[in-house]
């Protein structure tokens, strides 16, 4: 498949702050997940791809064209920005129709397409309500609807699952897959690995403005599994539980955080979780809580960079 986004030594600064630094990447997956912790440069990259801002250095080409203020390219792409902004006085359907009309559709066609798009994001019931009354999840869905309503070749979506409940997340992930199946290529960002994983195997990892890795999500998942993690366990008999856990190969240390809690450090958290359940069941330990305190992308990415 031909790459739809090609970045070459792409850099973008905001004054003294580096948003993106010497990023060279070629993206061709039907759904590509842009993954990284907050501040990694995901939004900057997507704004460059969507033609909202210009590179400070290097170049980016989207569907073979330079994106900044490129009207011809804007016919072919749809952009769902991260910012939670809508025209608050308009209804949902008015909002989508207005933007469709700016794509050149006449009133009738814009109306038909607008309703179809709202139907796909399950927003028809609220379509004639002012967007100012929408919940966070509804606003996210409306933003998404305006991005694909005109039938773009490429959909650029910045953190689309933020603020959605689990059911709606599932629905939206299914929608991204459907859109990809219908031939629309999707470039989507997230800072939550399992969300991206649910959509695609092809990821682009960014960290502190740089490209960290690009490729199969499985490889990254393996790296993350080997990331040493501290897990705090609340149990009725922490000392007896500690004796059982320290014998596990993947547990490197055990400390007691409080009379009822212990903290273990493991180099393979997935294997540890697999072992924990049978041990707890066999020993009759009453495990009351589990807290992976450093299970966040920032910690994982720091580990990967090392």
């Amino acid at each position: 498949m031909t790459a739809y986004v090609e970045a070459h030594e792409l850099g973008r600064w905001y004054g003294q702050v580096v948003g993106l630094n010497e990023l060279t990447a070629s993206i061709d997956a039907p759904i590509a997940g842009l993954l990284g912790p907050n501040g990694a440069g995901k939004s900057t990259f997507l704004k460059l791809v969507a033609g909202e801002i210009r590179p400070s250095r290097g170049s980016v080409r989207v569907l073979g064209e330079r994106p900044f203020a490129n009207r011809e390219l804007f016919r072919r792409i749809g952009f769902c920005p991260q910012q939670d902004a809508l025209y608050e006085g308009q209804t949902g359907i008015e909002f989508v129709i207005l933007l469709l009309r700016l794509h050149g559709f006449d009133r009738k066609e814009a109306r038909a397409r607008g309703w179809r798009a709202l139907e796909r994001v399950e927003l028809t019931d609220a379509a004639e309500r002012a967007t100012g009354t929408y919940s966070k999840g509804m606003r996210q869905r409306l933003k998404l609807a305006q991005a694909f309503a005109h039938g773009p070749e490429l959909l650029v979506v910045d953190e689309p699952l933020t603020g959605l409940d689990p059911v709606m997340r599932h629905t939206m992930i299914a929608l991204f897959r459907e859109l990809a199946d219908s031939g629309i290529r999707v470039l989507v960002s997230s800072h939550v690995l399992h969300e991206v994983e649910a959509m695609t195997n092809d990821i682009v990892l960014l960290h502190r403005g740089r490209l960290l890795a690009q490729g199969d999500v499985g490889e990254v998942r393996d790296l993350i599994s080997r990331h040493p993690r501290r897990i705090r366990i609340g149990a009725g008999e922490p000392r007896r539980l500690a004796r059982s856990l320290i014998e596990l190969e993947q547990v490197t240390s055990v400390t007691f955080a409080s009379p009822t809690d212990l903290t273990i450090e493991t180099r393979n958290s997935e294997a540890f979780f697999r072992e924990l359940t049978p041990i707890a069941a066999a020993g009759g330990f009453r495990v009351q809580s589990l807290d992976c305190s450093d299970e966040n992308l920032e910690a994982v990415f720091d580990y990967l960079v090392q």
Partner: protein
Amino acid sequence: MKDFIRASLILFQAQLMSSLRSKRLLICAVLAAGPVAFAFMLVQVVPSDERVPITEISWALIGQVVCPVLALVFGSAVVSEEVSDRTITYLFSRPIHRASVLIGRWLAALLIVAVLLTVSGFGTIYLLTSTFSNDVPIESPFDLAFAMVAGLTLAAAVYSAAFTALGTLVKNPMIWGIAYVFAFEVLLVNSQLPGNLQRMTIQFHVRSLVHGWGVEAWEKAEIFELNDLITFGGAGIVLFTALFVWLGIAGLVLSKKQYELSA
């Protein structure tokens, strides 16, 4: 060009609908009603056989306050509102010329300002002329009001274009605009400083325009005696030139500018 006009018209309609539902319009309608209310109060408290400086009152309230303030409020919001609301992304990711956003929204702003000025100008002059005599006799109240409203509508176009351009350049155009209108313009145009400083103001040229309109009461209005006015044609040329220059600046800035909107 056809696409440009079409996009401008769509955005004009959208902005008009949005403005009609806005609090801004309500506040501006109250402001525009101020001179009418003042005229109504005069009618109630001043004996009808007294002479009242109708042209001076009308100009001081509508020409110097209502017109520039309305133009400032609506003009400065043309672009800056989209930026502060972070909705400009939606427009700038469409296959339209960026300047069509400016033209469509500015025309909607100007239409609203023109309607408010018309109501304010005609209402005030009607109330005052139907009760009082002016220092200089007024042959036709309609001509008097029309000259003022037409002149001020052109002035509002220039003011709003200037404030629109300001809105593309600075973060708080309202503050800069208020400083321009009430410090710079008022100071220069209502004083008799030597040199041609008065000619740097919009107010000077609109005074010249209305003064030269051909209505005797405006020709002899005392408030205009503060200025060494130019001809009707000259003032018109300057105002139209300023209008196109400001719109050109705003369009140019908008077509090049990158808006870094926060999440």
